[in-house]
């Protein structure tokens, strides 16, 4: 079984969007931190999956939250792909600034944490979990802020890699600590290592 030719998938996605028949679109974005699966709803990106997350599991979560009409749409999402790629390759200056939608986050506190993170913690900055919790209105909820980051459905776009433990080090990351280091180096929050990777 071979897949349908890309021009057919692109034409179908364009038509489905025009007729309001798509719940979500997705594409793949090759990058220095691996190929990302990027899923977009009507209002922006709802999910970013790292290479090691199986497509069917990522898309099952999207179906549960947004509906089953999920389509591959490389052409529709070309702007998102190019922006992300340029950012991760280091050729785009400034913020990533892609529209996103936290529809897949159900807990209000987690949603608040992620909104603050995306709005206030800029490229090159980092924040501690406790400080993030405090800004979200509950200084004692450092652990819950950590959970919000650990379950962030939109890594990179909502920059949970910029949150560090107060004990020192870079801490955990959904995409693995080495990726977190790589992203922080890219953004200038950590000095780049001298040895080439």
């Amino acid at each position, binding site marked *: *079984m*071979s*897949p*349908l030719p890309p021009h*057919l*998938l692109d*034409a*179908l996605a364009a*038509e*489905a969007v025009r*007729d309001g*028949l*798509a*719940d979500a679109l*997705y594409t793949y974005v090759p990058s220095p931190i691996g190929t990302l699966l990027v899923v977009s709803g009507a209002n922006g990106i709802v999910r970013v999956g790292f290479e090691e997350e199986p497509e*069917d599991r990522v*898309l*099952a979560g*999207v*179906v*549960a939250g947004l*509906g*089953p*009409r*999920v*389509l*591959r749409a490389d052409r529709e999402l070309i702007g998102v792909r190019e922006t992300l790629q340029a950012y991760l390759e280091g050729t785009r200056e400034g913020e990533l600034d892609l529209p996103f939608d936290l529809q897949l986050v159900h807990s209000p506190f987690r949603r608040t944490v992620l909104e603050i993170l995306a709005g206030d913690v800029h490229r090159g900055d980092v924040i501690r979990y406790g400080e993030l919790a405090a800004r979200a209105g509950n200084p004692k909820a450092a652990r819950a802020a950590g959970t919000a980051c650990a379950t962030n459905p939109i890594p990179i776009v909502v920059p949970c890699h910029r949150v560090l433990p107060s004990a020192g080090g870079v801490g955990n990351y959904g995409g693995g600590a080495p990726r977190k280091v790589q992203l922080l180096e890219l953004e200038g929050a950590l000095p780049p290592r001298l040895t080439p990777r």
Partner: protein
Amino acid sequence: MVVLPPFSALIEAHGDALLTHARRLAGPEQAEDVLQDALLRALRAYPRLRHADHLRAWLYRITTNAAMDAHRARRREVPAADPAASITVDPEQLDGFEDLITGLPDGVRATLRLRFVDDLEYDVIAIRLDCSPEAARQRVSSALRTLRQRSPAR
């Protein structure tokens, strides 16, 4: 609540076979348009499905209907009516197909029904027609040829 697979997974699993099906029914030039039309109809109906069984057969039926509508539209040389009006999720609603094959010899009609209404594989058609699977395949393809030759658009 019914859990449906992402529509993209259906396209991945069956898209290629559906395109072949559309090609057989509508010819190579119309096939892609027919398939696109069919997949849009399927998308319209998809969230309303009450179960996730027989999705492949469901897609085949919708593609068959889209091919028949395209065929009728060409025959009448008028644009098809609002495609939304002809969405079908109901397996019984195959009048269009009967329209299409009306006037063909009985044997040809029966063969086409086994393949495209009942959606049977060739080995099962072979049992029904009491012949070898290879002969069943040939009968279906010759029945399709008969159908296409009759179509004034060809």
